[in-house]
């Protein structure tokens, strides 16, 4: 069976150790979490976790049913096969070295990257997009000299519920 990345959206009760339970359940059964995003929903007592994991359909079904067993888990949905939008974000710092300054300014203009901090020494950019867009941005940032970077896990939302 074909292995691919699956996006799993999980609604959970916002309990102190709910993330530990989820990570422990998957880790203990030998499944890997590739990326992870967690925050509360509009109701403080309920959180949404979006995670990605690579596996074939059988593996992913097993992950789903293992998660479903947890008392604090309300629902588990695989968003991979439903229409949904996906976004990741990176924050990246580029040093404004004399020989790179012009190149960086030009790249920021051409790519419509958002500058959130700028001073004489460096800029911090905020870039959002789906996985492909982020990967493309990273390829373009690479020659400019990335000093530091943070990349979020993927967030996703189905088009209709």
């Amino acid at each position: 069976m074909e292995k691919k990345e699956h996006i799993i959206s999980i609604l959970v009760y916002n309990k102190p150790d709910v993330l530990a339970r989820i990570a422990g359940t998957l880790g203990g059964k030998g499944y890997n979490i590739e990326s992870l995003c967690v925050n509360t929903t509009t109701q403080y007592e309920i959180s949404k976790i979006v995670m990605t994991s690579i596996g074939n359909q059988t593996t992913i079904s097993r992950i789903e049913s293992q998660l479903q067993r947890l008392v604090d888990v309300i629902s588990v949905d695989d968003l991979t096969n439903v229409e949904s939008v996906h976004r990741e974000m990176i924050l990246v710092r580029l040093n404004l070295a004399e020989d790179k300054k012009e190149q960086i300014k030009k790249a920021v203009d051409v790519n419509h990257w958002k500058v959130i901090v700028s001073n004489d020494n460096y800029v911090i950019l905020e870039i959002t997009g789906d996985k492909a867009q982020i990967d493309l941005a990273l390829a373009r940032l690479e020659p400019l000299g990335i000093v530091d970077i943070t990349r979020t896990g993927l967030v996703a939302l189905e088009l209709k519920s």
Partner: protein
Amino acid sequence: MKLKGSQILLKMLEEEKVDIIFGYPGGSVLDIYDQLYKSKIKHILVRHEQGAVHAADGYARATGKVGVCLVTSGPGATNTVTGIATANMDSIPIVVFTGQVPTGLIGNDAFQESDITGITRPCTKHNFLVRSVEELASTIKEAFHIARSGRPGPVLVDLPKNVMAAETEYDPATIKIRNYDVFHKSAPKKMAQVLEMLSHAKKPLIMTGGGVILGKAAAELTAIARKYQIPVTGTLMGLGSFPGTDPLWLGMLGMHGTFYANMAVSHCDFLLAVGVRFDDRVTGTIETFATNAQIVQIDIDPSSINRNVVVELPIIGETKATLKDLIKFLAEHNYTPSSSERKEWMQQIADWREKVPLTYCQNEKIIKPQYVIETLHKITKGDIIVTTEVGQNQMWTAQFFHFDKPNSFISSGGLGTMGYGLPAAIGVKCAFPDKQVVDIAGDGSIQMNIQELATAAQYNIAVKIVLLNNGFLGMVRQWQELFYEKRYSFTDMTYAPDFVKLAEAYGIVGLRATKPQEVESTLRQGLSIDKPVLMDFQVSREECVYPMVRPGESISEMELGTREMIN
């Protein structure tokens, strides 16, 4: 009404109709023990916290109710982990209350602090750290609900000392718990599929597991098998869910299953698997398991489906409700199996049974362990509750004691916990004081929780221990004999106490049998004494459990033993 946390705990236990607690006091639970001193709830003081959990687990397995234990923080809590993991693997409903250091000290490496919720997260169904006295009552209620609902399991509740001392308003009528999802689906469409498959089946077989006992569905399963004359095999955990003396019963399947059960499952064309999870000890190599069969799997837990064996038709639901639906559906649609085809299949099984029966070589000079178990079954007519330790004693019990009723075979199946049988027997005997409760033990296992003899002695809990004493860690030795050219690396346990003297030292009765002629009289004597009794049977040292499927092989390929006398 304002009450202290410790008082609320006891009130809630009464609400949950808890009549007995197995426990061990300590610094962090002094407030609770002070309340217990005045309480009507019975408390059994064990000699090690592991024993408390196994006793609560045995109580739960025999009664179907939630077993309860109470221990202190730190080492008291960590000592429960093996017991909790044992209950978790076999889906046994217990609630374990652990003391904890005051909330202000949590995380400080305080004296007798352990992160027991962190430690037990992977081996509990759920666990709680109660952070304030206000959430105590609802947490306890939720803990019992979670332990017993759906697929049952152990729940741990960690109780910081200051929460037990703090006061709050208590009104049992206002306690609410949050809803949690349990599967109750009925599946009429799937019943039609079962009928369709069953109608085409020439060699049907039922495989019954622990879920049938936990789901109280033994009567329904038995009714289907008998009405439609479908032979039945079972997993270790399923023993007792179908009468072991019924002609349709083929015995246990798997690594130490009977020849005919393993042949039947390998040749059947339809397999109704109820409340099983297809453990590796049952299936042998997955690729060769029941390859000729269409498999219908009924289980309450979706994560048990397609986990090891991929099945044609999964039905998620309570075993009892689902089997009831099936009984009704088959009757309404006048399902009648072809009697000639069924006859042929039964004849095939009878031939296998005749070719390789479940047997052993009798011996006039030395006691065979199987003979002890057979004799125990004969003189009690099987009407006792049996616990076992783990290893050869457990497998021979599964093979040679024919369990007719559910909840009468109490054994650590999934985790295979040595030292389980004695404390579990104590728990069972507390639940059924008038019932004969026998722990069939090995000399290795019994020593892992031998201290519980003191518990039995203190309360005169008249459990009977049938010790199959071969001076070896028998099952490990068997593997060394068969797979490691008899290099008996650290399995010789000849250096052991004199068990009769040991029993006497604990203040219970010790008996010994060294010849086959003494077996029956020793058993009769031991069973007739209304005190805890340890019967030391000096059995043949190098007896093996047969049949045996080599690890990693198909269950149709069995070692049958030389069938010759070994000693």
